[in-house]
């Protein structure tokens, strides 16, 4: 009974948000930009064809960098818009918990990004046409990419609750996302290695989305990586809830 109710509430919020995403032309522009950029980086920068390898490494390695810009743009409206229009007053006085609203909104934005990600399927067809790719790394790469997108999104959802301004939310979340990438970016860790102790570098780079995404790109689905992304999401959404509560006090 209780779970039914939660599912009903989350699905009502989810449906409303999904309609809000797909009801606006911005959504289609976003998807087009995502597909264009990912194509450009994969083919023109990484020289996918010239490498002559039947795998998607050159494709997945760009995902974190693209997400860093595009996911905050998807997330920024989640709460900032509700705060600006005052609609938050009605949502939060419905007989549902803030957690259900946060989760429903998050899922809708995640599904939206999932759709954009799924539309990259021509990449898969291309490698299958070019050679005999190992499907394992492709599947795990997609799973990893989707999880990582969720982690970026949870950051964006959290910053969106901080402000009525979508632009400020975008910039804040861009910076936090940048940190989560750079912490494990080899050129950055190399600089750190000169003076910081080994254990500190390990901790910092373990915090990074990159380090956890890399092995998934290679076809290794480690439970620890999955748990890592899930805990980032939970932590950020929890923070999101606290921020919403604090804002009203």
């Amino acid at each position, binding site marked *: 009974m209780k779970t039914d109710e939660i599912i009903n509430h989350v699905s009502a919020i989810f449906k409303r948000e999904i309609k809000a995403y797909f*009801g606006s032309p911005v959504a289609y522009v976003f998807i087009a930009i995502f597909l264009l950029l990912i194509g450009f980086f994969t083919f023109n920068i990484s020289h996918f064809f010239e490498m002559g390898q039947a795998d998607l490494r050159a494709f997945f390695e760009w995902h974190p960098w693209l997400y860093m810009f595009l996911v905050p743009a998807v997330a920024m409206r989640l709460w900032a818009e509700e705060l600006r229009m005052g609609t938050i007053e*009605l949502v939060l006085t419905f007989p549902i918990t803030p957690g259900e609203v946060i989760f429903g909104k998050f899922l809708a934005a995640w599904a939206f990004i999932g759709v954009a990600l799924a539309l990259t399927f021509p990449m898969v067809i291309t490698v299958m046409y070019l050679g005999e790719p190992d499907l394992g790394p492709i599947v795990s790469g997609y799973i990893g990419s989707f999880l990582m997108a969720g982690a970026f999104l949870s950051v964006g959802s959290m910053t969106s609750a901080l402000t009525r301004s979508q632009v400020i939310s975008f910039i804040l979340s861009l910076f936090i996302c940048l940190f989560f990438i750079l912490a494990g970016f080899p050129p950055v860790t190399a600089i750190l290695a000169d003076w910081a102790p080994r254990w500190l570098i390990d901790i910092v780079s373990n915090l990074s989305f990159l380090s956890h995404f890399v092995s998934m790109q290679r076809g290794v689905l480690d439970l620890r990586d999955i748990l890592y992304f899930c805990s980032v999401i939970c932590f950020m959404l929890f923070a999101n809830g606290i921020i919403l509560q604090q804002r009203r006090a």
Partner: protein
Amino acid sequence: MIEVKNLSKSFGPKQAVNRISFRVQKGEILGFLGPNGAGKSTSMRMITGFIPPSDGTAVIGGHDILTAPVDARRKIGYLPENAPVYPDMTVYGYLDFCAQIRGFAGSERLQRVKETIERCFLTGVEHQTVNTLSKGFKQRVCFAQSILHDPEYLILDEPTDGLDPNQKHEVRLMIRKMSAEKAIILSTHILDEVDAVCTRAIIIANGSIVADDTPEKLRARSSVHGAVSVTLGAAAADAFTACARAVPGIRQIELLETSGEALKARVFPEDADPLVAERLVTALAAADFEVKSLFVEQGRLDDVFRAITTS
């Protein structure tokens, strides 16, 4: 029953609501009055659980809004100030969304939404998106949302704000009709509305309750309550004063207007004696004054409101 206990709210150093307490029973319509910034909306936001109080609490139908917020909110219909509705949704889509959140499903949901659209005079705009609606229609959509689930408790923040006179009338009728089995709190700046719908009125100023009474009793606090207003045809002020003074039970005579054609005056009785007016008519008639009109003042809520909130 809605029970508000010692509700307080401060924003930093500013005390927006200061220990207000009251109860509203089913069948009552409580008018919430007060100058701008008095704390009406803030109180309502706390009662509906949107903002946490600094102190005190509200109990809605036995559920404390702080410890059982979801159960309490299930019984509430809330119309916030300025009717915040998602601008990108259609009227039907929005009400359907609210119905789903309220736990209605299948044909019952369809039925509810359709019925509410009719009741709130939204037929014809139900497939329009909210951002294309005029202010009054937007207000009606939000009002529709608040009564959709037929709640036991209704909290309405300026429900007739932005409505045309006909719609104001309809909404007041609707509120009155619903009131038998509901407890309703509504805030307003229109004092006629208090007379038209409320069974009780609370005036708050600077966050505190300064009056809590029925509209009739509040009106009785007016300084002109019970006074007799007289308009005579051309008459000498002195002659009129002398004549009126002779009537027993009269405390004071105030001349309002003494132009050539008419003489207007207000006569205050010593106590609220309904017979004073009658005796005055008799005396004036006997002295051959031409009485154009004569009535007993009920007192005006406006005056009482101003007197209470500016003192």
